[in-house]
């Protein structure tokens, strides 16, 4: 399953997200992207691992930290950057901004900046798929903070009850803004939250794109067999501040050491090493991919900057 083609696609997505986020971080100081940005540097593997199992007919809903989900699902890069610049060519015409990316052509149906808010939306999409007897699945991405919201539990109960084609994906970065997981919940066991509804859960290394992919593939297989929803928790770390372009080595209980440790576990580097070691991709290929992506990103920023400003719909 992890062949050249797979590796090329996954690597492309990982690098696209990483480099896009880096470009946003670096351009942000110019204050032309006038909206809060919650960057996903360090967390790319979850979005990519999940999306490697999905097609355009599969549906994704996301949260405030949606850049990675949007890009991994195949969302249009130019439209995303234009959205951040508040342009009429933005993916939601400049009305939504960074927290509300959407590309309906590839099944990315939006993001809510209300924590937990889009979890039931994915369940509703799953209900549509089931009622229409479609073979597709609906995915909701949410953070560890969202797992404290009642609507998460209510949504799992419903999805399990109706055996809906839903994959619940929790990006557990141990933090909500700067509040550590331990000051919000007694145990670090989010993947077990579905058990009481009969929803199997797995906790995987969220910085390992292959592990995330495999867990998602299993979840999708269960859905195909009519066994209903699954819950996947990916443990990960955000390298930047909750919001904005700066590196975060100090908010909440964080330390420089912890940050360094996670820097070592960089999901992009990790997968690149795997590809090179296993001869899935050559150094020339990775470089070429990187170059191509950089050009695309440059172009996206150029276009966005010169695009016309947003208009009322």
């Amino acid at each position: 399953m992890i062949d050249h083609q797979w590796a090329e696609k996954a690597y492309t997505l990982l690098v696209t997200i990483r480099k896009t986020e880096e470009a946003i971080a670096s351009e942000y100081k110019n204050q032309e992207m006038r909206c809060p940005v919650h960057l996903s540097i360090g967390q790319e593997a979850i979005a990519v691992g999940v999306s490697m199992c999905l097609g355009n007919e599969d549906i994704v809903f996301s949260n405030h930290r949606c850049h990675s989900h949007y890009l991994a699902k195949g969302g249009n890069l130019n439209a995303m950057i234009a959205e951040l610049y508040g342009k009429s060519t933005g993916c939601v015409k400049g009305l939504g901004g960074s927290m509300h990316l959407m590309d309906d052509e590839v099944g990315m149906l939006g993001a809510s900046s209300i924590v937990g808010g889009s979890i039931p939306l994915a369940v509703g999409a799953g209900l549509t798929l089931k009622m229409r007897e479609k073979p597709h699945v609906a995915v909701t991405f949410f953070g560890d903070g969202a797992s404290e919201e009642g609507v998460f539990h209510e949504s799992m109960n419903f999805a399990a009850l109706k055996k809906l084609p839903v994959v619940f994906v929790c990006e557990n970065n141990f933090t909500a803004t700067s509040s550590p997981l331990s000051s919000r919940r007694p145990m670090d066991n989010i993947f077990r939250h579905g058990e009481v509804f009969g929803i199997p859960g797995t906790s995987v290394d969220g910085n390992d794109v292959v592990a995330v992919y495999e867990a998602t593939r299993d979840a999708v297989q269960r859905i195909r067999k009519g066994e209903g929803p699954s819950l996947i928790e990916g443990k990960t770390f955000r390298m930047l501040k909750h919001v904005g372009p700066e590196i975060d080595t100090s908010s909440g209980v964080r330390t420089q050491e912890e940050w360094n440790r996670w820097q070592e576990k960089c999901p992009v580097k990790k997968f690149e090493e795997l590809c090179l070691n296993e001869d899935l991709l050559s150094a020339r290929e990775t470089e070429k991919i990187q170059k191509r992506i950089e050009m695309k990103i440059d172009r996206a920023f150029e276009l966005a900057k010169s695009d016309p400003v947003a208009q009322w719909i």
Partner: protein
Amino acid sequence: MNKKRTLTYREAISEALVQGMEADSNVFIMGCGVDDEGGIFGTTQDAFKRFGGARVMDAPLAENAIAGIGVGAAVTGMRPVIVHARNDFLLLAMDQIVNHASKWNFMSGGKLDCPLVIRAIVGRGWGQGAQHSQSLQALFSHIPGIKVMLPATAYDAKGLLLSSLRDNQTVISIEHRLLYETKDSVPVEPYFVPFGKGTLKRKGADLTIVAFSFMVKEAMDAAHRLAEEGIEVEIIDPRCSSPLDMDLILESVQKTCRLLVADTGWSSYGISAEVCTRVYGQLFDRLKAPIRRVALPDVPTPCASNLEKEYYPGVDALVDACHILLDNGREGNTTEKLLPAEHARFQGPF
């Protein structure tokens, strides 16, 4: 076309749901108890018998998730109808209604519609108390991106509900429990009462009453009583608070120059204030007396039936207000307050 056929409000809602589901296979119903024998006071049972549990589905007690599931289904092409036995329960779903349903179209740059219908009933009578008899239309009417309908007759209940099943915005239907057994002539075939179009319930030259929901009935009774005194009241039911049919209201007040607004919710910061403000703004020079409001006093609903009777303003309050409007300063009469038959008859239990 058999215009003479009469149905109760309850039956009219039921028929609208069945016809709406027949016309569009995307329509389905969700809610706690929609499939049981009661069928939400007899409004969902026919649909359940006809379409079965796959399209008329019982739901867990999880109002916020159910609303969100409705949003998710709606933006992916279905037309969910969510039903609540009391609109008080919508307070658990405010996040999904206000933060999501009302905004998903806007936040998607207009690309996704959210054609969700939420039916919720106002309770009144038989000591249901503070948490089962609120009339919360003001909360929803303030929110852009959703529509709010308040059907007052069986005819409108069917016609508005059928319209809501074709509308591309989320519609909140605030129904009133005391109207459920009231009858009206209701065409058999589907018809569509447009949103934002009110209806002239009664013609009269002396003053206008703009009434919503159950207060339309009370206003009609008040008009009857006033007619005996020679006072002719014009009654307008806007049928929706959002969008609000200002043209019809202004046309009437332009003529009568006197207005009373009657609502089933609390007075302060209620929907009556918006009607008043708009009319004053447009007909400032025509009004011959300050507009009067008849709505609930600003306290929670008491349980004891003697207090319930004092709590709800009815025909007497409307008649008094009309007298004051017509003769600035005249005190209200002191006849004993009467409960409307619907309230007096109502025995709950729930």
